[in-house]
């Protein structure tokens, strides 16, 4: 009886997953659909006669945008880790005075809507001449991840056994060497989790891209899709092909780093 119950649950689970992922399937399906079939009624549920027109268009037109997004993602990861990891060390292991206040400020920082930050950045960048530049966008995108990164590093580093640090001190290692040779190697998983989220957020960002980089020569893929929709309302197969390509990093990360994703989402919402 239990056996049958388990199968029944698997079947139901498959149905739920299929329903949930239907939009994703539809995106892939449309990306392979012939332009003349896009408005067919009833619509083609499966691309029996697939076309790669959409993908050809992506590779002809979107490579610079994909490259820009990659650059911005990597830049944002680097900036986030360089700022957040030492700060986490200071908060967790060096007992920074005022640490509570700083933690509190980081929580508040996460509540500020991106649209407000975008306006502030626009005004600041306008004076500094940083509008429509890649470094400007990297800095703006990193603001999504830095507070998260600091809090995650702090939480993880607090769990590093004190004995290790004391042993290092006895050996004459200063704060810097302890950080570089003990704390950082031990925090490898946290670095991965933080990097992963910093990359995904920068890669997916639309608000900052569409405000402080709207007239840039190099625009990221999200903005490129948006402009594409505005200009080609009929070429939905090409739009969806771009969307599929833009989703690839997420798909890769889900497959190779699912553990870190789940760790990042639940990091602290649950007390253990």
């Amino acid at each position, binding site marked *: 009886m239990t056996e049958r119950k388990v*199968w029944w649950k*698997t079947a139901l*689970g498959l149905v739920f*997953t299929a329903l949930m*992922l239907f*939009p*994703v399937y*539809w995106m892939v399906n449309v990306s392979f659909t012939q332009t003349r079939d896009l408005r067919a*009624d009833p619509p083609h549920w499966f691309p029996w006669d697939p076309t790669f027109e959409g993908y050809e268009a992506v590779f002809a037109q979107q490579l610079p945008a994909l490259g820009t997004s990659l650059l911005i993602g990597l830049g944002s990861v680097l900036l986030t880790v*360089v700022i957040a990891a*030492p700060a986490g060390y*200071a*908060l967790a*292991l*060096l*007992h*920074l005075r005022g*640490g509570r206040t700083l*933690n509190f400020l980081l*929580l*508040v*920082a996460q*509540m*500020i*809507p991106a*649209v*407000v930050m*975008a*306006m*502030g*950045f*626009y*005004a*600041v960048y306008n004076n500094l001449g940083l509008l429509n530049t890649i470094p400007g966008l990297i800095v703006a995108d*990193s*603001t999504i991840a*830095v507070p*998260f990164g600091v809090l*995650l590093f*702090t*939480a993880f580093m607090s769990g590093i056994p004190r004995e290790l640090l004391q042993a290092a001190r006895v050996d004459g290692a200063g*704060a810097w060497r302890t*950080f570089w040779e003990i704390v950082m190697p031990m925090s490898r998983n946290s670095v991965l989790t933080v990097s992963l989220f910093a990359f*995904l957020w920068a*890669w997916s960002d639309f608000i900052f891209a569409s405000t402080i980089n709207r007239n840039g020569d190099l625009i990221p893929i999200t903005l490129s*899709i948006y402009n594409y*929709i505005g200009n080609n309302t009929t070429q*939905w197969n090409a739009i*969806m092909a771009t969307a599929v390509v833009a989703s690839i990093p*997420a798909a890769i990360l*889900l497959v190779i780093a699912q553990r870190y*994703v*789940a760790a990042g*989402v*639940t*990091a*602290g*919402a*649950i*007390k253990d």
Partner: protein
Amino acid sequence: MTSTPADVGTRGESRGAAGTEPAAPSAPRRRRTLSSSQWAAVGFAAPLLVYLVLFYAYPLMRNIDLSVHDYTIRAFVQGNAEFVGLQNYVDVFSSSTFPTALWNTAVFTFGSIAFQFTLGLALAVFFKSSFRLSTTLRAMFLVPWLLPLIVSASTWAWMLNSENGIVNSVITAFGGEQINWLTDPDTALLSVTIANIWLGIPFNLVILYSGLQNIPGDVYEAASLDGAGAWRQFWSITFPLLRPVSAITILLGLIYTLKVVDVIWVMTTGGPGDSSTTLAIWSYREAFGTGQPDFSPAAAVGNLLIVIALVFGFLHLRLQHRQEATS
């Protein structure tokens, strides 16, 4: 979503404070090392402090500055905007868009949260009993959350397209009427809310699922020995024991949903008219959405949004402190 590890911070900090205890016995030496290590601590935190001032405090100050001046594009370039005090806020409150945007924000936010949470909880309970493929399927549920919002939003826009969308084609196949999801003022807000519910389910599922993992299994065993069925077990064990986690999930969802711009902007740009305009969309549209950027009212709306987000944020913190105190 960005705010999840929020909780990590407080937790980590309390643990960090506990960690000072072992060093306590050697008090005189500790004092000296503390002060020198305090310098090191400041050194390691310095990049973050500089970063927060330059890239958080300064833009936010500029934002307040924008909201109390009358910035036009010309004044923006020349930097001689006229100081108008709270006039922009008065204009925002007396604008005809204000009640609509406030109402839409409330409907969008609470509608999204109610369904995301209910569906997320139902799925979490469903996935709790492990069955063949359950881990894989649960991982697949993360996909919508990892996709760039612009990708999901444009997919939904095409699915809900009036003439060629799959949703209408299913409805008409069953003899229903074509619905102009995104272009009818009566359904535009509903459409973006549906898309946003879909986007939020994974987050709710993941957090509630790990909350369920922490409920000890023997509680359920005792209950089923007492003859309590699945329904009864849910309402008298799962739901009450999950309440703290639920509260945090809902508040994080609120803070996140208040800020949503991408999804609505890509699907409807807040229209038709103001019918799917939320406060965040209103602010975005004034500043960047038209050919005529109007930063000052946009900044005023944005600051209003911060205040609302902070109210829920502090509620979240209070809740967490209380939870920490009781455990």
